């Protein structure tokens, strides 16, 4: 049986609970690149990730902040895999918000308090000028798509109303 997310609550839950996304970028010279990332999503489905400023995908985003993304579980069996894809805009997170996002991010990915305390880098590391300059970034979804329920055999995509998804 082909599995598909039917309602927006399922989509929202999927985005919030998934851990990895694939980010597609393209600079102004047409050099395309893709990058898998760990991320966290907030209540308004803004997505946050961290990267080094000199990484290939961030250099591309510096030139062109418009990106594409997909979120799916690549270990799912055939017929059960489902996911979300879309377009977004990425910007660097304001310094004042780093503490809050840092907390949210590492609580999701290292839920155990003791282990997180040992292994998660401090928030200050994401504000430091010392090499490698890692920063948090915010990705705001501009368009999102899921499988079209009416056309399951040809795997078409259906646009999701973002206002309905976020609220």
């Amino acid at each position, binding site marked *: 049986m082909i599995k598909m997310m039917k309602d927006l609550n399922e989509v929202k839950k999927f985005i919030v609970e998934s851990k990895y996304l694939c980010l597609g970028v393209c600079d*102004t*010279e047409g050099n395309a690149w893709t990058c898998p990332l760990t991320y966290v999503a907030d209540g308004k489905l803004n997505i946050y990730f961290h990267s080094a*400023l*000199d990484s290939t995908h*961030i250099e591309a*985003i*510096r030139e062109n*902040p418009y990106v594409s993304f997909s979120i799916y579980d690549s270990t799912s069996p055939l017929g059960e895999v489902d996911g979300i894809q879309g377009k977004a*805009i*990425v*910007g*660097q*997170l*304001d310094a004042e918000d780093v503490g809050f996002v840092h907390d949210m991010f590492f609580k999701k990915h290292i839920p155990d308090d003791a282990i997180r305390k040992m292994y998660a880098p401090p928030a200050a590391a994401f504000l430091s*000028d*010392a*090499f*490698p*300059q890692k*920063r948090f*970034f*915010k990705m*705001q979804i501009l368009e999102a798509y899921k499988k079209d329920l009416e056309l399951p055999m040809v795997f078409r995509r259906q646009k999701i109303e973002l206002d309905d998804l976020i609220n």
Partner: protein
Amino acid sequence: MNIAVLIKSVPRSSDLNLNPDFTIPRSGQRMEVNKSDLYAIEEALRIRKKTGGIIRVISMGSKSSINGLRYALSMGADEAFLISDDAFRGSDSYATSLVLSTAIRKTGADLVICGKRSSDGSTAQVPSETAAMLGYDLSVNTVRCDVAENGIICTEKSEYSEIIRKLGFPALIAVENGINTPRLPDINCIIKSREKEINILGAAELGISPGECGINGSLTRVVSTERISAVITREGKCIGSTDEIRASLISETSSAVNDNEDITVSDKKLYDLSALSGNRVMVICECRNGRICEESLYVIRKALPIADKLKTGITAVIPRCDDHTVKEILAPLGVGKVYRIDAEDLLTSDINSVAELILKAAETEDIRTILLPSTVLGMRLAPYIAAKSHSGLTADCIELWVDEDKLYQKRPAFSGKVNAVIISQNSAYEMATVKPFACETEPYEVRHAEIDIKDQGSCETVCESSPSEMVALDQQIIVGIGAGVTDKDELELIKEWCCKNKYGLAATRRAVDTGMMPVDHQVGLTGRMISPKLYIAIGISGALEHIVGVTNAGRVISVNPSRSESLSRISDVIYNINSKEFIDIIRKV
């Protein structure tokens, strides 16, 4: 506070095609915001966060500069101004500074921030010239800014010291790369920036006549260029076996250490300045701890053939220095007259007073040529004097010569891809800063008359300085670290080897940018020039910007697993191994 940030859109370094009249084409090229200016925008954003106010970004260029202005708006600037007119095309740094200073007066600014130098022209003259024209307080080579009451405290780094300079408003600051980490735009600013208007100001709006700007208003002119890649050619012999490499390394290092040229008197050029009248070539010197700096002495040596050709003598301007040192050091170099300024250090003295005293001396002596070393002092003072005196200035010259009574000045440009030959025009003085140790000076002997010392006046010290250790790069064997060395443990082993054998340690810009090596070790177009007998380049690709700095090395060995064409061109020998394998070999040598 009103903050103006000067930014420039420059061609991406891979795209380089000059116009037939040696101007840089601004349309039809892929452009990007000059990297130095990103630091300026970021610094302005950080200052605005503390003081409030607005940030106006100003860019002089063609319509292709609009994208750069939009990027600055998306970083968080409030307003953007494009200074654009066909009449501005071909402006040198003097004409550019005139236009920018006019635009700044029109838009209004308490504080002007800019990058230290652009990647295309790379003169680093515009900040100081613009400050001189505006009459603003000036800080260059700024590595830190702290907002204070009624002013801003700037920390500057020179070759020998750290300087704390307090500027009142209005002020102009040229920031050093690495002063901060430029942010990427945030989403709200990106979206808002798309709606903001770019204000365009031309010559008419600024009240500038065609004769004051563009090629007609420029005080320097490029007369020819040559591609540096055509000039640098070495054997490029490649060896890969461990035994061959070990034998080669022992042989090369021994030769470099034992090579002592024996110069006989008959090999030396004789300059006879003893009977000459007039001292029309002026060299402005730096002193440290009462001693005249080596960089200044190098410039005097470069001035000798010019003075000889012009049949004139050399005048030196120096800060506080005793008579004995002056006579012992400067007289044998052919200096006929010395103007001594009573100041500890010209860098920490009031720049306006220093410039006035120097220009007064220049007028007295009927000077025609003024030279300074390309040091932090030279970068600060030379453009200031040039702007005040309406003189053409060429920065970072590697060669100077006189032909038909005109001074020709050769300098690298466009990230070191070409050498440009430049002359002054319509100038009060022909001015140049000379890149220290860019090439060896031929052996010489000078016949000279008694040196005449005049005390020119005093200048107030206006800021504090504390000495810092200068990294020595005058060894016979120097090892260069490039981006190919990525392992910090390997780097430590290379450092130990260098320390044990008393080799110097240099770095490419990329190795500095990635944090592997400190900026004091940087060699190249925007770093230092070195001329060791042997240069061992580890993990260096052969980028021209770095190679310009080691052109005069006796022999070059590259340690690199690749065999690129650029590497072959710049190396006498290539050890076709990686840094780890090289370390294994040097442990056994």
